[in-house]
């Protein structure tokens, strides 16, 4: 029995009256139940970006290296020279991970990997950007958050490790605003020859349409619509059947598809991600300027008695749609059989522009594909700034013992070592990881292309909460700075916009501010945005999450000798701060973690200054004199220096200070002013650093010297001494200890 279409049913499908009228006009009739389902997922926020598309247009998307632009295909493609290119993208799996952290995160990894090999690229590494509520708390949320982080990390490890793509970096932050609504953004990069980019178009009328991969079940029914709603207790109850990832099938599918693409038998290829069969059929038809006709009776199914609605909207994992060149069907079948994959010829490419779905011969769905895929209504939501954040009067800020404050900061899980997490990720498979997790950016040797790539993800959402535009600009700058510190030239960006419900004017305002901030910064750094993802409706019972426009950035290191790490290496080396001592304390982690205040204006970014600092550090690295480079971010100078001392395999101390500094020691130690990089060089190279900085007009502070078993910092006349062990213990074990004991 198919339900009759009532206003109530339309509403439950998340479609407005206006949208429903549009559907009727488009079809020239009432849609049936299955068609209503098809529209509801394709016109959901998740698939259509109806509330954000206008904003996304603000990003710079072109550049000399861009081969496939944002929005054209499943992922953007960038030229890295020598005939090689990379496809990369970031995607979120926030809502599924909130409901079932292990499977939610695992299927997120599976999904982004499919997006990359759909482009014809072999996935070579993964990054992940995570946000959780606090994990050290005793209460209800503390327990929940610990369960979430254990599940998410295990899920990412499960999928990535099994499929054999190393997870070489990422970031994790903790803040109350993510209580119960974690963010799980995963990034994948793949390598391909620049002439062999695969397309997701249904080209060639008469070509066969093949379905390959796992059988379709009732999993994740209408997950795209689910992701386009607030996460509430009720939504947890009416959630779709959880999608379970099968990295083993994922691996077979990956190998089979790459073999297939190399065989020249494929006219078009598209993964079935959100909105499964629905999205892949209408999108390929739309891109090809063709139509697609399939028959659901031919679709491999896991469960009996599935309705057309269920089959079309299922989000079962590890499935692909493949358009096969005429005459090559047998060759394609042999490859599927070799890899033991279920497959079926489900339809053909047509010339009438329709997405037509038959149910054992009788027409069930008939919708113009292009309009369905591309003509969802576009909205401009109302935007209004939230109340300005509380300002900070430094003179009224209590001066606490800075010695203790640093230990407190090191113990804060946003700063503490993430070893508990990245040890669970296989980061050495594929024998290419040159700089593993634990330095500013990961560096990977892409053997196929004989190229060194650096990659990072960044976003300080505390800044974004206080000033989304500035926070977004800084996210881009910080990503570029991380790449610079590792010796790379920034190339391009993928982003993941994580925000709350866009119908709340302050959320939409935050989103717009952040997009404009990202766009401006990407222009200034010459790093086009080649793709990304939007995740809205991130709400916990206490309200919206802090705006989190995560930036994933990749860079190229031309010469192996330039690869640079963040930790000090040799006794006697001279430590410089490239940039100024700084003073800005608003939005700092010091204020939040030590004084319990999420307040003030975040630091201001000056592009000229930032570009000059990065330029100088890259240049110095290329002269071969830089032994370590580390950017100053959360926790300021003191935390950055600590990390340079203790994050390498051998700990080494330093004695530093800025003789000219006058003022409060906590400001000196913990301010988060931007455009600062700590480098170390051999004593004989110090003069060269000084004269070069002077020539290009970049401020430089000679901080001191590497060596000894303590970190000793002179902060405005007072000297503070920490033993290396004293620093190492809270930093290294904070997260390990929080998660060591199983709780509910």
């Amino acid at each position: 029995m198919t339900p009759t279409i009532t206003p109530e049913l339309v509403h439950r499908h998340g479609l407005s009256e206006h949208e429903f009228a549009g559907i009727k006009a488009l079809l020239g009739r009432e849609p049936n139940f299955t068609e209503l389902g098809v529209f509801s997922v394709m016109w959901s926020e998740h698939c259509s970006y109806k509330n954000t598309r206008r904003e996304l247009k603000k990003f710079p998307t072109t550049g000399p290296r861009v081969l496939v632009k944002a929005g054209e295909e499943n992922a953007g493609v960038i030229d890295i020279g020598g005939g090689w290119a990379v496809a990369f993208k970031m995607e979120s799996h926030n809502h599924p991970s909130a409901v079932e952290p292990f499977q939610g995160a695992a299927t997120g990894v599976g999904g982004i990997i499919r997006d990359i090999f759909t482009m014809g690229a072999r996935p070579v590494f993964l990054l992940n950007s995570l946000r959780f509520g606090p994990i050290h708390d005793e209460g209800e949320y503390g327990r929940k958050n610990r369960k979430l982080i254990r599940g998410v990390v295990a899920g990412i490890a499960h999928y990535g490790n099994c499929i054999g793509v190393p997870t070489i970096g990422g970031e994790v932050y903790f803040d109350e605003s993510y209580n119960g609504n974690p963010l799980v953004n995963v990034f994948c990069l793949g390598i391909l020859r620049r002439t062999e980019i695969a397309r997701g178009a249904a080209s060639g009328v008469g070509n066969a349409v093949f379905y390959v991969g796992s059988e379709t079940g009732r999993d994740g029914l209408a997950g795209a619509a689910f992701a386009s709603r607030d996460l509430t207790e009720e939504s947890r109850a009416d959630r779709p059947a959880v999608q379970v990832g099968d990295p083993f099938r994922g691996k077979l599918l990956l190998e089979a598809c790459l073999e297939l693409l190399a065989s020249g038998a494929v006219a078009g290829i598209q993964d079935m991600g959100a909105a499964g069969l629905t999205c892949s059929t209408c999108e390929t038809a739309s891109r090809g300027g063709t139509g697609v006709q399939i028959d659901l009776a031919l679709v491999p199914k896991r469960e009996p008695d599935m309705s057309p609605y269920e089959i079309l909207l299922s989000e079962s994992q590890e499935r692909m749609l493949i358009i096969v060149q005429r005459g090559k069907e047998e060759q394609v079948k042999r490859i599927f059989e070799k890899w033991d994959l279920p497959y079926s010829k489900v339809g053909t490419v047509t010339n009438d522009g329709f997405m037509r779905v038959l149910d054992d011969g009788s027409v069930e769905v008939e919708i113009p594909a292009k309009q369905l895929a591309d003509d969802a209504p576009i909205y401009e939501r109302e935007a209004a700034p939230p109340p300005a954040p509380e300002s900070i009067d430094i003179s009224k800020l209590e001066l606490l013992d800075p010695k203790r404050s640093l230990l407190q900061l090191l113990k804060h899980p946003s700063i503490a070592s993430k070893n508990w997490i990245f040890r669970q990720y296989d980061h050495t498979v594929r024998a290419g990881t040159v700089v593993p997790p634990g330095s500013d950016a990961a560096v990977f040797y892409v053997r196929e292309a004989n190229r060194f790539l650096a990659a990072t993800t960044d976003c300080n959402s505390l800044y974004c909460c206080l000033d989304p535009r500035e926070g977004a600009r800084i996210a881009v700058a910080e990503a570029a700075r991380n790449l610079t510190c590792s010796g790379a030239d920034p190339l391009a960006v993928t982003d993941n916009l994580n925000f709350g419900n866009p119908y709340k004017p302050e959320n939409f305002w935050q989103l717009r501010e952040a997009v404009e901030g990202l766009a401006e910064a990407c222009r200034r750094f010459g790093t086009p945005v080649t793709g990304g993802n939007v995740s809205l409706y991130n709400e916990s019972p206490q309200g919206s999450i802090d705006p989190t426009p995560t930036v994933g950035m990749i860079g190229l290191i031309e010469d192996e000798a330039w690869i640079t790490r963040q930790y000090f290496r040799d006794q006697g080396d001279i430590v410089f701060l490239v940039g100024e001592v700084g003073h800005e304390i608003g939005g700092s982690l010091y204020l939040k973690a030590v004084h319990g205040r999420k307040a003030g204006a975040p630091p201001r970014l000056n592009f000229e200054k930032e570009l000059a600092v990065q330029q100088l550090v890259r240049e110095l690295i290329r002269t071969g004199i830089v032994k370590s480079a580390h950017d100053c971010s959360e926790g300021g100078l003191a935390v950055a220096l600590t990390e340079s001392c203790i994050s390498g395999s051998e700990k080494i101390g330093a004695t530093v200070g800025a003789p000219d500094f006058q003022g409060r020691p906590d400001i000196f130690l913990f301010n988060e002013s931007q455009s600062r990089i700590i480098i170390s060089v051999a004593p004989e190279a110090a003069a060269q650093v000084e004269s070069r900085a002077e020539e290009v007009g970049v401020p430089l502070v000679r901080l001191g010297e590497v060596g000894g078993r303590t970190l000793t910092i002179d902060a405005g006349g007072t000297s503070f001494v920490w033993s290396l062990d004293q620093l190492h213990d809270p930093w290294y074990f904070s997260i390990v200890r929080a998660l060591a004991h199983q709780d509910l």
Partner: protein
Amino acid sequence: MSTPLIVFRMKLEVLVMPKRTVLDPQGVAVRNAVRELGLENVETVRVGKIIEIEFSAEPDEKKLNEICRDLLSNEVIEDYRVVGTTTSFP
């Protein structure tokens, strides 16, 4: 001769199985392997967990159920049952 000490021992088994509606990739892989090895009549396989628990005193039933639901199984994707011991592993 000393009299043997009588020790209270109660054994329970918690059986946890993936829900039928949820994909069980392990079950699929095992089914295929079992078929290859010559049992072609295998239709479906599901792989679950047994958690064998020995108590030295009768456990609190409410608590036990809570633990089964929240710790030993995952209600989003699994069903569980508690049975008195039916197997006799050494």
